[in-house]
């Protein structure tokens, strides 16, 4: 197990370095420099570039960037807020994104589990059809369409919840964004749980347990759900990723001051430094989630550990 974790960690570090290199190369071939104000003379531009260290050779800057990043210095923003260190730009936004993301995952996984269990144990009945229909709509409907419906009806027409995020009431105004983001984990957890339950119910050991006269609650909890739930972790991983990417859209839709919204602004304003830092943070988060889930899964299910660890 130790060896497996070490190997995965090493892989993660390599991936991150490759990502950085990729980002750097892209920054090189990007059209124009961040300082394309037409009023600047070439000398002035060269001066500014020298101040930001942009005149150094490629690999020097790459190494410098990594060294600075490890020390928590991501450079400064060029356009969004001139010369503001990116770390300061992020400090307030990061918790907002994390909060909404976590809320979404908790809501989504819980709702998905309930839906999946209801559908799975009522296989081929009305409840199954309703839940499956809801789940496939959840998979198919893009986050922004759902965001729009929620914002329009719940937020605008019926005035039940605020549809724009405000820092004054972070809980109330984060309900709609979280619900929107929860759709994707909910749907995939529900679909997975349902098919797993149906699958497990047909296994021999369930028949055996039934013949031995195990009571229904005990059968459900100890024999069925126990086997189903370990697998759910595998679906949660891609869902977390969906929540990460979904946060881009949802933050824009509900004007949430998070890092997703900032990334979009940075793209539109050509603020490369911010774009790349955020892209890197997204990658790092993603790798972290994947790593955690894989290790967790290995802890829970030894069969995986054996096959994957070799």
């Amino acid at each position, binding site marked *: 197990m130790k060896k497996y974790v070490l190997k995965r960690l090493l*892989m*993660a570090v*390599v*991936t*991150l370095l*490759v*990502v950085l290199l*990729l*980002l750097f190369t*892209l920054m090189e*071939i*990007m*059209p124009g420099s961040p300082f394309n104000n037409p009023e600047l003379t070439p000398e002035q531009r060269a001066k500014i570039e020298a101040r930001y260290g942009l005149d150094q050779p490629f690999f020097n800057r790459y190494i410098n960037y990594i060294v600075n990043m490890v020390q928590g210095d991501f450079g400064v923003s060029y356009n969004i807020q001139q010369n503001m260190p990116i770390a300061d730009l992020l400090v307030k936004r990061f918790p907002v994104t994390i909060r909404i993301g976590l809320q979404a995952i908790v809501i989504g996984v819980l709702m998905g589990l309930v839906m999946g269990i209801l559908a799975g144990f009522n*296989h081929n009945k009305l409840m199954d059809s309703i839940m499956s229909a809801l789940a*496939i*709509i959840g*998979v*198919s*409907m*893009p986050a*922004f*369409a759902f965001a*729009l419906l929620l*914002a*329009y009806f719940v937020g*605008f027409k019926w005035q039940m919840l605020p549809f724009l995020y405000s820092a004054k009431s972070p809980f109330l105004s984060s309900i709609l964004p979280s619900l929107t983001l929860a759709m994707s984990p909910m749907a995939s957890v529900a679909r997975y749980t349902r*098919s797993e339950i*149906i*699958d497990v119910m047909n296994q021999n050991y369930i028949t055996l347990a039934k013949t031995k006269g195990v009571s229904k609650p005990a059968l459900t909890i100890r024999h069925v759900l126990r086997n189903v739930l370990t697998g759910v972790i595998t679906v949660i991983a891609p869902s977390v*990723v969906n929540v*990460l*990417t979904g946060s*881009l*859209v949802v933050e*824009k*839709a509900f004007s949430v001051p998070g890092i997703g919204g900032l990334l*979009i602004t940075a*793209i*539109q304003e050509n603020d490369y430094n911010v*774009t790349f830092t955020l*892209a890197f943070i*997204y*990658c790092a988060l*993603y*790798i972290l989630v*994947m790593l955690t889930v894989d290790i967790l899964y290995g802890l829970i299910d030894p069969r995986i550990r054996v096959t994957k660890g070799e």
Partner: protein
Amino acid sequence: MKDMQNVQHLTEEERRLVGYNADEFVDENFSGHSYVKEIILTLFANKATAISLICLLVIVLFAIFAPMLSPYTYKEINSKTTNMPMRIPVLEDLGIFDGTRKGVDMYAKKGIEDQYHYFGTDNLGRDIWTRVWVGTRISLLIAVLAVVLDVVIGVTYGMVAGFFGGKIDMIMQRLIEILTGIPNLIIMMLLLLAMEPGIPTICLALAITGWVNMSRIVRAQVLKLKSNEYVLASRTLGASPKRILLKHLLPNTMGQIIITFMFSVPHAIFFEAFLAFIGLGVPIPMASLGTLINDGYRSAMLYPYQVLCPAAVLSVLMLSFNLLGDGLRDAIDPQMRSM
């Protein structure tokens, strides 16, 4: 003894074996369905799949013909008729979609009672009905092109990795691991930032991340199939790897490829809309469903129909593709049936 004599006295006609003619072997009860016919029958036996297929067909037909039949073009700007509400013939007699806003007949007010904007117009006076179907065209085009690219890259990569195995496979898998270590959206975004915006760029950005899934599925399938006896037999007879891959393994992987194709298309449509929504869509005045939703979003609270119409088409499109994919999976691969 007497029987024996009888046998010897049988005529040629009587001595004929049962089943002498090939057609006597035809099983009438389970009579001939070809593989393809079987799949089609199973597909249509599933109600959800049949409905989704019809929806898809309707959407495609509209995407092809609606812009041709419409009196408006997708880029024609008319400053007189901005933000017109929806007006649909027949339905307007029922009191819905009759072109009124808050009781005022907007069409009469502007003096264009003879015009029908089925989905209304946007803030530049462009007909949304036409734009939605032109947008559907472009969204579908991008998705299908991107997924075809996916298939070409993914199938080749997966087959080579799976078939040759060993070191080649290991290196190829490590490459994929690194690529999957980066979220799709980030790769697409950065690519779109670095290159000229347009349909080919978007297709490329979608394909660059999309093929990984396809290659994984194909690789797994090839790994499973290549130890089969018929592959061994073919190899013993001196078939080249190319022949084994193309003649034996590819046809047997086809089912999986088609299923993955079906699931990749809505995925691509979704990502295209996603990119458009964050401002990296097809350049104006062209429209895709994503850019239409993005445009409509700004005035969503005042004129909800401007965003609801494209969003509805997008949702139905994705739902149909997903349901069709589910149905196809059940039909092609009974083992993977989702019960």
